[in-house]
Each structure stands twice: as C-alpha cells, then as structure tokens.
C-alpha cells in the first residue's frame, strides 16, 4: 500500500476484519482476539469480555470469562452489555470506530487464554471464574470449559443468578469447584419489579445445590433501599438458615459502573439515582448478617 496523495487524515486505516484473523491479538477489542481460533471444532459460545488478574470473583488471582446473555434484567446491572445473547453491534458515537460487543469463541481459544496465567493461579490458590451475563444460559459450552479446566487441575467458579432450569444446572454441579450465587430481593414482588422475573426458581435451585453438597458462596448485590434494607437482610438470613451449609456471604456494594457502561456503549437504559453505600452502612449490613452466624466479606 502506498501513501494516498494530498493531505488530510491518513487513509491508512486497515479494515478491522483484516486484523481479526490474528490469534496473537493483544489489543482492543479484547474479545476479537479470542475470535481468532474459531476454526477448531467443539462447542462455541459467546462472551463479551475476559479479564486477567480478577481478584474479586472468588479466591486468589483469577481469570474471569464473561458470558454474553442474561435471563434477568436487573435495574442496577453493572454489565449492561451482557444482557443480550450473541454478538451485538454498538452504534458508534462521533469519532469512534465501529465495534461489536461480544464475540463467538471456541472452548480451545478460551482454554488457551486461561492457561496463560496458570502460574498465578498456582501461587494464589486462584483459578477461573465463569461469569456474565449468565453462564448457565450456555450450558454445553460452560460444561465443556469446566471439563477442560478439571483435566488441567484449574480451580473453577461459576458466578450465576441461579435463574435456569435445573436440567441445565445439574450437569454443571459435579464439574464446578465453587458457586458464586447471587441473591437479589427475597420478596418476590420486588424481585419481579427490579429483575423482571420471579425468584422462585432461583431459590429452588439454591436449595438443590445445598442438597447436592456443592460449595457455594452467596453474593448479595447491595442496592440502596432495595436489597440493603433491614427487611431484606433479615429475609436473606431466614432463607439461608434453612440451608445450614451455606455460611459464606459476600457483599457487593453498589457501584455506578452500569450507568457508566450504558453511556459508553450507547445502551438505552433508565438511570437510577442510587449512590454507593458508605463504609459505615456496609459495616452495619455486615454486622447484621454476622449476628446471624454468617461469615461475611465485603467485595467478591
């Protein structure tokens, strides 16, 4: 290619498709890098991100794989780009390159990426976390990834909202080392209002996991006035007291990342006027749950 005549901005911009074929792509957008190895056989899935040095999604240093697509529509969702299943074009703003949220990837390409940080998992007792979106929405892909990790001896965690038919959950149970299980409002009317679905299935699945002997860490997204209320916290405690093996609760303080991302990706979502809890408020929540005999930590 030679230089275009005349001035102006250089026309030397490569079509983005050209660059996507490369497997070594270490630059943005990250998921495109993984799209590289789609040629190999096996189940494929859609993810929207993969983060290394994730330290809030289970024990140790982890790689978190974010599945795209979620059955819930939480008003406070901090990954709004995960909502829809399948790759999703972003309407570019001014001076922005066109981009796509999410990409289709193979098990092998994800495993290759996961293995890069094995030394850090070994050192820290870390591993890989499958999050989203909702990983249980892509059960075959998830199972293949978990099976592969088990063969490699890599610790696995599945971060779920719990809203999936038990038939999707069951095959995953034996393959997963740790569940990070989100509980949203315990009151079903509130749950429907803020997430769009009933929590009946969520609670039933949690009970089945309790019976199955699975390791579970409960995660409570703290939404001001909705899930951090005394009533809801008492309801959480009451629910979990019926599942006495589950003693670990992680509090996820509210953050405005969802609002920020919605703007970043030009997603049309209603904005709420919530603000993050103060340290004092967090301590009070923590104390209340601790008094019920739970082991509570702040942050994933």
């Amino acid at each position, binding site marked *: 290619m030679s230089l275009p005549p005349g001035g102006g901005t250089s026309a030397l911009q490569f079509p983005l498709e050209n660059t996507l074929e490369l497997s070594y792509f*270490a630059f943005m957008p990250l998921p495109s890098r993984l799209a590289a190895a789609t040629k190999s056989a096996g189940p494929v899935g859609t993810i929207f991100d993969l983060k290394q040095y994730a*330290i809030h999604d289970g024990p140790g*240093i982890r790689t978190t794989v974010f599945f795209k697509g979620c059955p819930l529509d939480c008003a406070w969702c901090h990954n709004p780009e995960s909502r829809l299943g399948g790759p999703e074009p972003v309407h570019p703003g001014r001076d922005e390159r066109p981009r796509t949220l999410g990409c289709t990837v193979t098990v092998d390409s994800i495993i290759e990426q996961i293995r890069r940080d094995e030394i850090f998992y070994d050192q820290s007792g870390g591993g890989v976390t499958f999050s989203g979106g909702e990983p249980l929405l892509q059960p075959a892909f998830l199972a293949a990834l978990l099976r592969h990790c088990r063969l490699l001896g890599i610790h696995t965690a599945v971060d779920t909202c719990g809203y999936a038919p038990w038939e999707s959950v069951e095959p995953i149970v034996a393959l997963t080392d740790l569940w990070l299980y989100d509980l949203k409002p315990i009151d079903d009317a509130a749950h429907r209002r803020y997430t769009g679905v009933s929590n009946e299935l969520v609670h039933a699945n949690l009970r089945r996991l309790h019976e199955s002997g699975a390791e579970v860490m409960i995660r409570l997204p703290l939404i001001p006035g909705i899930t951090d209320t005394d009533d809801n916290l008492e309801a959480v405690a009451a629910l979990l007291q019926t599942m006495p093996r589950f003693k670990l609760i992680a509090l996820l303080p509210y953050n405005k990342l969802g609002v920020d991302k919605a703007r970043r990706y030009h997603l049309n979502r209603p904005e709420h006027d919530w603000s993050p809890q103060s340290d004092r408020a967090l301590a009070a929540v923590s104390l209340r749950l601790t008094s019920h005999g739970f082991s509570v930590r702040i942050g994933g």
Partner: protein
Amino acid sequence: MNTRVCTLRQQSLEATPRISLERARLLTEFYRTGQADRVSIPEARAMALHHIMARKAICINPGELIVGERGPAPKATPTYPEICTHTPADFDVLDTREKVWFRVGDEERQIQRDTVIPFWSGRSLRDRLFAEMSSGWIDAYEAGVFTEFQEQRAPGHTVLDDKIYRKGLRDFQHDIASAIAALDFHRDPEALHKREELRAMSIACEAVITLAQRHAAYLTELAQSESDPDRRAELQRMAAICTHVPAHAPRTFREALQCYWFVHLGVITELNTWDSFNPGRLDQHLLPFYRRDLADGTLTEEEARELLQCFWVKFNNQPAPPKVGVTAQESATYTDFCLINLGGVTPTGEDASNELTYLILDVIEEMRLLQPSSMVQISKKNPDRMIRRALDIIKTGYGQPSLFNTDAIIQELIRQGKSVVDARCGGASGCVETGAFGKEAYILTGYFNLPKVLEITLHDGVDPRTGKRIGCASGDTGSFASFDELFAAFEKQLHHFIDIKIEGNCIIERLWAEHLPAPFLSVLVDDCIANGRDYNDGGARYNSSYIQGVGIGSLTDSFAALKYHVFDKAHISMPDFLAILRDNFDRHDGFRADLFDATPKYGNDDDYADDIARRIFEAYFAAIDGRPNTRGGHFRINLLPTTCHVYFGSVIGALPDGRRASKPLSEGISPVQGADRLGPTAVLKSAAKLDHIRTGGTLLNQKFTPQLLSDQAGIDNLIHLIRAYFRMDGHHIQFNVVSADTLREAQAHPEEYRSLIVRVAGYSDYFVDLGTELQDEIIARTEQHF
C-alpha cells in the same frame, strides 16, 4: 518519632542544597604544596584525603546522636575538581536550574575562579577522558547513543559487607603492614607498585581515624560548655564512641552505626563514587549488636529505633554530588542511591529476616525521606509477613521499599562466577544492580540507547537528527525483503556502537586506575589488600563492567510494528513508513491510532511482540556479555534507566511504535506507557520472557491505585503476584501507588495511561475507560487515602 528525631528530620528536609568548596580548596591546597610530586599517585591521593580530613570543618548538629557531615553543614555538597572542574557557567546552571539545583555563593564562585580552575583546568580526569576518546566515540556520545558514567563520577557502585563490624581500621592497617612485609621483590615485578598502593591504603585509614578523633575532640569541647546535663552526658558518650570507632571494631549497636558512618564519609570524600557507598545488608550486620545490647540491658528497642532514625537523617543530609551536562540528564535526582537491603538469606542460605528487618521497616515508614533508599530482598524462604509489611509502606504512596528476588540475584551472581556464599551475602545496589557485597567492583559505565540504534539502522548509518553519518553502512532498509534482514542490519549497527563504547570504557578504566586510585575504598573491598591492587585497578575479588540497556519496550514495539505492517501484512512500504516518521505522524492520526490499537505490543503476554523482545535481549547480551575489561573481569548487561529514558527519548525522532519525536522512551523492562492492556499478570509474563538470570539487574515498574491495596484480599493477591513473578525469575518489581494528581493526568492524557487499573467498589476496571463522573469519584477517593 520523638522530638529529637523530628527536629533533625525537619532540619534535613529544610536544609538548602548548596555547593561547598571546602573539599576543592583543601585538595588544591595539598596539591600545591608539591608533596604530591614526591610520592606515588596512590600515596598522593591518600595524603590528599588525609589533608582534607585533618582540616575540614567539623559539624555537630544540635541533638544528633550519630555525627559527621561530608561538607561543613547538612547538604553543603562538595565538588571534586580533580574529576570534573566546573566552569563558572556550570555553576550558573547548577544555581539556577529548575530541578536538582545547588545554590552557589559569591565566595564559592571566587574560589573556583581564582584557585580551583587555574590549578585543575586541563588536568581533571574529565578533560583527559574526552581528549582520549576517538572521533567515533565523540560522535556517538553527542548523538545520544550512549552515556558515560565515569566522565564526572568515580567508579564506585559498591556496597559494604560485614567486615568493618569485625575489624577496626587499625586492624586493617595491620593487615596492610603484613601484606607489605610479604611482598616478594625478587619474583614479583609489580611489588613496588603494590607497596605504594598498600602504603596509600594505610594512610587513607589514618585519614579517616583522624576525622573521627577530631570529632571526639570537638564533642568533648562541646560537652564542657554544655549546660544541659542530659545533653552533656550524650556528648561525652559520643566523644568516647568516636575515640573508639572506626579505629577499632565496634562493640555496641550504637558504635556500629557511628563506625559505618565514618567509613561512609571516608569513601564519599575520597571520590564521588557512583553510586554512593552503601551499608548493604543492614539488618544482618547490626543484628549481633542489637541482640547482645538488648540482652545485657544496654539498649532498648526504642533507643535502637531512635539511633536508626538519626542514622537515616545522615544519609538524607548528603545529596548526590552535583552533576552537569549529559550526566545531569541521565540521573536528574538528589538521590545518591544508597540502597539499604533487608531480608534475603544468610550465608548458609536460610531465611535472614529478623526482628531488626521489621524495626528498620518501621524506620523507613516513619522517616519518609528521599535518602537512603530501601529495598526488601525476597527469597522463597522469607515469610509472606515480610512482604506484607513492605506493602503496608508501599501502599502509602512513598515508592519505597522496592522488591527484589534474592533467588534470582544469587543465580545471577553464580552465573558470573561468584561463590555461593559470596552470592548469598550479596544483593542489589543503586537502582537494581546485582553485586557481591564487599567483594566486587561492579562498575556501571553508562546507558545505551537501544531505540536510537534502530533509528540509525533505518537510515543506513546516518543520524537523521543531524544528518551526520555516525554508524556503519548496514544497508538500505527499503531493499530489505524480510524482517530478518532488518534485524541483521540492526545487529550490525549494535555491534558497531558497542565496540565503540567498550573501546572507550577500556581507556577510561585505565585513566581511573592510573590517575585516580581509591585507596580508602580499596581497604574495604576484598581482596584489594591481599592483591596489593587498587579498587579501580582490578584489586577486588570480582570485577564487572556494566552497560545498561535502555528502551527495550520502545524498541520491541517499534520492531513489532515494522514486522507486522511492513513485512507480514504489507500494509505499508518501508519508505512510506519512514516518510510518516519523518513527518512525526502529522496528518497520519489514523495510522498512528492503528499503531496503538491494532499492532502487537510488548507487555501483553503476546509472543509476537515478546519474541522480538527476547531477540533484542539476545542480541544485546551477545554483543556485550563476557567481553574482557581491563581489570581482569568482564563486561555484563543490565536493563535500567534511572531518568535516562527521558534524555534518550529527547534525541530520537518519531518511532515506528507510534511514539512522537523527543518523547520519553519506555523505562527499564516496563512496557511502553499505555501499551499493556491486559493487566499485571500479562505484564509480568512478558517481562519474565527476558532471561533475567543472565543480567546484572532489570527494572520493572507497576502502577497501582491505593484502593487496590486497601483490603486484605488486595494485599494477599499482590503478594501472590510478586511471588509468581519471582518464581519466573523476575529480578525486581516496584509498585508505584498513584496519586490523585496522576489520575487527573490520566484523565487529561488517556493515551498514556491506558494500562492503569482502578478499583470501582468491589470491581476493577481500566481507569481511562470509565466515564468522567466515575473517574472523578475515584479521584476523590484516592485523595482521601493520602
């Protein structure tokens, strides 16, 4: 800290760095007596030191417990006209420059003009050095291909072991006398030279003992006129200590500190060694004294803390000697790089951390002084507790202590031929430089501008900045059919300039050995006495010469861009690419954006780029490692920049990685600012692909916001991160906890801060990706942390 330490610390912080001509005046006075003409050069040097030590002003600051200043007052900084004779213009620059200034008084200017310049001009080592260099060397030096450490500063760069805590200078004089007695004039043609050198060492010991005794006398005088009985008792005790050390081996913790300090003053007055002298493994050396004194009830932990704090102030009172010209640019700092080593392993290879390690870490945290610098040696045998304590201090944003891998350091030293025990007793000094403490003369000879060599390669031997041909003919890059041809051309230029640098170094080593020996430093480094040879002339047990590579990140990314866009993808021809570089990317913003966003970069655990980094490393290593120096040792490589990446960047035009002309290069082995996009694990993986074990030190900086270290999980995972990097044989890592100001900078210039990760309430993300509102929130929270 108590009132005494608080006052001393404040005095040190507020002291004005100024030029003192006391040393220059006394030195000149001595050489003008003609005595120097009647004795050998080493003896003359030692007599000059004695002349200075016997006459310099004694400064005892109110309340201090450890005494001795290099100049007549704190931060009154001497000059070394026998090395570099400052011109009146140099003094103007020192006095008025914005950073790292030294006030110069009228009296000093007058002494310099009337006394110092007339005597030393044309005789200084600097004058001799430049006169001896070839035109090829001068061209490369002026073009900024390399710098030269010894043009204003003496070879030094050594660290003390435990010998002065076991032997006094009188004992060393005894060893010297035995060595003289053992000289064999029948069979050893160098016997006379050895006798001269050994006699010089003995005179130098006398000089430092004299300095201590003058302190003792003055302290006694002060005690007599002191009205406060407590202070009077202190002064009397200090006088007794100065009578005993360093003539004799110290008996107590307090004597050990005072003993070291006199020895330190001896070394830094004899010559302006680069880097400054340094006590090294302080928590090892002082431990026997500490335990004994505590056990027999003559010292409490609090007293030890106070003494260490007073000791810390002494370092901070001695700024690095004034630097001018290129030397000032490559090391623009008051820091003289006295790097205190903590932790590590014992001579028998066991965990060396002890109660004093933690006490000294407390002192570092409380004092928060620029000097001395501090580091923690981390071996697989040291407990996590030690790293945790270090991180406690690092997270306050102080930038100290830095973290080193003892197991890598030991392997590096053993590869170079040191014994296992000597290696275990070693550590790092200066920024990150590996050495066998007390036994090695490891001389840093200058920085080497790796990306500049690529620029010259791209122009077939011509420096495009001046149009001057300074390299060899390596071929028209437009005619190269493959990346391998381009790389071969680069290697050819690399060898060309390394040959020039090494030829210069070998001459410069001889100039120092012959004209400016260091008899006092020689007493302190094994086996100079046994060999009857000077430190500057290969007297030490081990003798290494380093050339410090700069800009491997920038060079890797530049090569990766050329390989990818010109050769692999044929997006653009070489001449067109060079034309864009000549235009400094003006009107090529789109192409430049592709260079940032659609080109492989070092720091992302991406073998496309990292293989190039490996290849550059191997080429640099092959060009230098193992070549003989003139001191019986070898040239070695290390990868660190101090502030030279800024100077080296200023002499390079636009680079193929998207960097615009004159901007700083990447520093150490860190990725180019903003090029690493996948977080710290990927950076560490990339950095570990270089073979640290075959270097004498590498430098890696990582930025963190305080929130990432605010909770236990954050700290724990950082410990794991460090351990994993060290398992991969990484040499050094430094965590810079960023301030709110840095985040504001990142808000304004996101392109330079793309790799900065911040924690957003239980979640981490790239700062520059966040919206302004969220960024502001994080800035506000960061501000609270300081």
